[in-house]
């Protein structure tokens, strides 16, 4: 198994249970988790409401509300979004690769409850796709289950882009804002969520609300998967109770001191210490050896290259910001002023949330690295540190 799939657990192992021995085939899965109970739609709604389950793809939308938005008479499809386009994240492909049956249990259980004849799984990683295809052959779900490989570009992971790709169209978000619950797969009502959400549903169906809530925050109990990367001794995917202190995760994974990025390249650089983690998914430690602004500039270039090229303000705005950061790093104060202006022009002006997320990431960098900005603007070779490439951007 590749090292990037290293797993560890703080507290209860739920989603990652049994994975220390590698991939769980059907038998090992049943041995570890037991059989998936058949629940009704009402039971799922009640369970999700009781534990406050939220989607684990980043948007943290309450699953109970998503269920309530679906028509009673049945829906077209349940879609598992495994496109995991955030370059640092590994948790979804890890689940699909090592615990495919848990994800399939969650998706097929819900499909039966919602009266959906199709289960569609969008995957971008070849190894993960293979693992799910093998798992499907080991089961008999009386449903049409399909695995589709989607492109890896950042924006291709957006829910509506995934639906478009599943229908054979381009993997870009459409210009109109439609809700998948109303107009999803082939414009019919669809339940779409991220891979981890379905694994959580499978665990929740087995444990019931009370046992599920025996760990984590009282407002949003249970466990969560985090991908920990960057300047850490033990990178990988880690399962923790919700609300775990960041410090605990950093210590456990052997992170170097220095700035921390939460939530990946649409996320935020941390301004304060003492935070707890929920609804985050990605923790990146930067360490102190590399130039933070140079690292951010590399990511900005990557973010600009990931724009689907559809929307003017996103294309020109992100390209402008790359140039602004470049000048800022070389000590030109104009770069800083232009960046501030461009950061105001980008959010909310695209067909998807990519410009908003990119601007959030860049704005938080300017705030968190204020001291470094000053050092660069003071001239004389910036902060004196090289750009080591701690922030990974090459992933296709």
């Amino acid at each position, binding site marked *: 198994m590749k090292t990037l799939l290293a797993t560890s657990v703080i507290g209860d192992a739920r989603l990652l249970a049994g994975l220390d021995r590698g991939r769980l085939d059907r038998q090992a899965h049943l041995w570890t988790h037991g059989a998936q109970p058949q629940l009704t739609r009402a039971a799922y709604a009640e369970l999700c409401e009781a534990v406050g389950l939220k989607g684990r793809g980043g948007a943290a939308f309450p699953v109970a509300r998503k269920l309530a938005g679906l028509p009673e008479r049945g829906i077209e499809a349940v879609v598992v979004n495994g496109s995991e386009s955030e370059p640092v994240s590994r948790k979804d492909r890890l689940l699909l690769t090592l615990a495919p049956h848990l994800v399939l249990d969650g998706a097929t259980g819900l499909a039966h409850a919602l009266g959906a004849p199709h289960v569609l799984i969008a995957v971008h990683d070849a190894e993960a796709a293979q693992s799910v295809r093998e798992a499907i052959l080991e089961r008999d779900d009386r449903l049409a289950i399909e695995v589709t490989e989607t492109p890896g570009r950042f924006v291709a992971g957006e829910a509506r882009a995934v639906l478009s790709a599943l229908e054979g169209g381009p993997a870009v978000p459409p*210009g109109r804002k439609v809700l998948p619950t109303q107009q999803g797969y082939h414009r019919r009502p669809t339940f779409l969520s991220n891979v981890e959400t379905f694994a959580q549903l499978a665990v929740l169906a087995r444990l019931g609300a009370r046992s599920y809530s025996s760990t984590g925050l009282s407002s949003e109990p249970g466990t969560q998967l985090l991908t920990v990367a960057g300047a850490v001794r033990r990178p990988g995917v880690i399962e923790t109770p919700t609300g775990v202190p960041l410090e605990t995760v950093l210590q456990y994974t052997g992170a170097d001191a220095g700035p921390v990025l939460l939530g990946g390249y649409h996320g935020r650089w941390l301004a304060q210490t003492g935070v707890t983690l929920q609804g985050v998914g990605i923790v990146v430690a930067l360490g102190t050896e590399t130039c933070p602004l140079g690292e951010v500039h590399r990511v900005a270039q990557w973010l600009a290259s990931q724009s689907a090229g559809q929307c*003017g303000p996103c294309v020109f705005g992100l390209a402008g910001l790359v140039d602004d950061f470049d000048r800022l790093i070389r000590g030109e104060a104009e770069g800083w002023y232009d960046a501030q202006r461009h950061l105001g022009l980008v959010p909310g002006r695209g067909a998807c949330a990519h410009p908003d997320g990119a601007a959030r990431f860049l704005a938080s960098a300017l705030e968190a690295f204020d001291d470094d900005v000053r050092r660069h603007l003071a001239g004389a070779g910036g902060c004196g540190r090289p750009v080591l490439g701690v922030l990974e951007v090459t992933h296709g």
Partner: protein
Amino acid sequence: MARLEIDWTRCDGHGLCATLLGGDVALDEWGFPVLKGREITAGEVPDARRAVLACPALALRLDKSVKR
């Protein structure tokens, strides 16, 4: 009550909307419209509709469903 909306996948920055609706649309440094986000009152709807029809890219829309 209505509000202007832009389909950013279509808009190619002709800037015509800013000429027709100067009070509601400005242009950014690349020539793309910046909406002021104000409610379009019933009396202004005809003008707004004219601008929507004039948009060469069919990108400008008048959304009447918003109630915020």
